[in-house]
């Protein structure tokens, strides 16, 4: 606008001599604001003149801008005329200005409608602009669900057995019963939602006259025997006061490492399952960290220690012999570098018979011979408590992602195809994390990928050593130096 460039001269106002009407007519100020957005428009019916009511359509006054500026905009019809001759101008001190002079009345009208309603209905002549809308930018890691091909997680149907279980748990919570009997229900699985309320059970204290009131510590017992559970219900470990747990006669193939969280557990019955080994966490619970005293393990297809070596081990060592398999050495990508390999974990469910495991002379330890260590490996591979590899740190962060994001990451790795090792490592680490994480059996440090694995055979229940009573415990180490201590031959 040209008049913005030079400062305008001070206008004549009624206060400095000009007549009021002449001033008002001559100095219709420019539209109030020169911002880029459209000016506010409002209409008013404040003109009481009779002429306004004579015509079929009433003319409402339109104002542009704020109310205190009071520039009434003429409606499109009256905009055609000269405003000095308009009756509105004469009858009121308000200066009238058309919103847009010399514009076609029709076009103006259409524009006003848009401004007025604020809702664009899309008339018959409006073109479909949907095709022109640019597709929103999606960053690489956040693909649309359609791209991801993740089927929407089906809402798990509540089985009849689980409904009964829920009902029983509800009753226990209401009555303060600490013995939760979920036996003989034919449960195939049991969800977190069903189990979570058990943690809320609070015993009703017995009040005896003359004895000072004491809130009893909760002491929860869960009976899950004679069911068909295939996986250990991991949400059980969140019930801190659990002292008694029986899972007798189920189809469990593995006990997750998170069982180590049950620090108050005193009795654990795992008889008549399909277990091959137990996590080393159970040994910790039986030691200083927990209170576990009773462990029932009968009738499981345990890994067995090979007889010959077993006898050698028992005769050579002291009263508490260490009977173990050779150590399996792995890289952080899950590749095995040692000659000894533990039987594949995935195939366990299929075979039912017990499996003989080679047992090593405990005085020897076989490190992989056909590998060479780089100088920089000294730290990452051979320093148990030193800095880990960047690969492991990144893996650790990834495994702690929530499940849907982890699925996305997996999807992108799958698309990329160039990183089969990385994907495999991530899968294993995520699986370990889901099962409660791994702790080094030697230095007690948390880790994401085991670098050593071996099985130790212990007979926790028996006083007399018997090959049949030995239970295999899987131990893991966080570096190649995290291996069982060698016992010297005495």
């Amino acid at each position: 606008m040209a008049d913005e460039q030079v400062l305008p001269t001070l206008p004549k106002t009624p206060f400095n001599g000009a007549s009021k009407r002449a001033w008002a007519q001559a100095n219709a100020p420019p539209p109030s604001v020169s911002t880029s957005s459209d000016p506010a428009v409002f209409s008013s019916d404040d003109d009481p003149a009779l002429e306004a009511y004579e015509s079929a359509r009433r003319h409402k006054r339109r104002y542009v801008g704020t109310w205190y500026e009071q520039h009434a905009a003429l409606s499109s019809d009256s905009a055609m005329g000269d405003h000095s001759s308009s009756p509105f101008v004469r009858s009121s001190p308000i200066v009238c200005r058309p919103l847009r002079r010399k514009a076609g009345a029709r076009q103006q009208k259409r524009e006003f409608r848009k401004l007025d309603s604020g809702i664009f209905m899309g008339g018959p002549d409006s073109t479909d602009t949907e095709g022109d809308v640019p597709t929103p930018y999606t960053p690489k890691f956040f693909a649309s669900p359609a791209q991801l091909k993740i089927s929407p997680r089906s809402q798990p149907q509540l089985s009849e057995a689980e409904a009964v279980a829920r009902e029983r748990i509800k009753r226990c919570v209401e009555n303060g019963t600490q013995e939760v009997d979920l036996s003989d229900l034919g449960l195939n699985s049991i969800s977190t939602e069903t189990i979570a309320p058990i943690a809320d059970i609070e015993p009703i204290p017995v009040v005896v006259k003359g004895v000072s009131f004491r809130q009893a510590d909760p002491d929860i017992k869960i009976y899950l025997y004679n069911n068909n559970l295939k996986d250990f219900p991991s949400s059980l470990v969140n019930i801190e006061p659990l002292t008694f747990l029986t899972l007798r006669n189920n189809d469990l193939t593995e006990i997750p490492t998170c069982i180590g969280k049950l620090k108050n557990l005193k009795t654990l019955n795992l008889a008549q399952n399909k277990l091959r080994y137990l996590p080393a966490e159970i040994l910790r619970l039986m030691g200083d960290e927990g209170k576990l005293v009773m462990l029932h393990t009968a009738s499981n297809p345990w890994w067995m220690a090979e007889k010959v070596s077993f006898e050698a081990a028992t005769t050579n060592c002291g009263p508490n012999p260490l009977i173990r398999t050779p150590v399996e050495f792995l890289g952080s990508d899950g590749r095995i570098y040692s000659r000894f390999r533990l039987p594949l974990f995935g195939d366990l469910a299929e075979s039912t018979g017990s499996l003989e495991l080679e047992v090593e002379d405990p005085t020897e330890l076989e490190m992989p011979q056909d590998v060479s260590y780089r100088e920089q490996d000294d730290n990452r591979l051979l320093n148990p408590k030193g800095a880990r590899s960047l690969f492991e740190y990144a893996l650790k962060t990834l495994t702690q992602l929530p499940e849907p994001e982890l699925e996305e990451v997996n999807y992108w790795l799958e698309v990329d195809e160039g990183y089969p090792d990385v994907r495999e490592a991530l899968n294993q680490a995520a699986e370990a994390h889901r099962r409660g994480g791994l702790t080094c059996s030697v230095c007690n440090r948390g880790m994401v990928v085991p670098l050593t694995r071996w099985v130790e055979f212990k007979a926790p229940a028996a006083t007399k050593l018997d090959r049949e009573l030995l239970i295999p415990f899987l131990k893991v180490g966080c570096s190649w130096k995290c291996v069982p201590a060698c016992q010297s031959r005495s």
Partner: protein
Amino acid sequence: MSDSKYITLISYDGFEFVVLREAALVSETIGAMLRGPFREAQTGRCEFGEIRGPVLEKVVEYFHYHYANRNQTDVPDMDIPVDICLELLMAADFLGLDSKPQMRDIS
């Protein structure tokens, strides 16, 4: 230049990081780049066409973290920001920053 104490790592978006050579040698890949008859060995400048600036920055941080803690025990874990962890995992795989030994050549 080639026997300088420092080397320069360049991300694909043009960020340059000057790193202590000894610290960067943790990476097997960088070691091979600097040892062989390559241009990198002569100029001491390694370009990574696949690693973004923020990721390479974290890698460099790891070099120094590892270098500072090389003979220590009870080292605190390094924190990895979530937004770059996948890229970092792949970069670590590429640079050989994982814990696995080399199979010895039978010859």
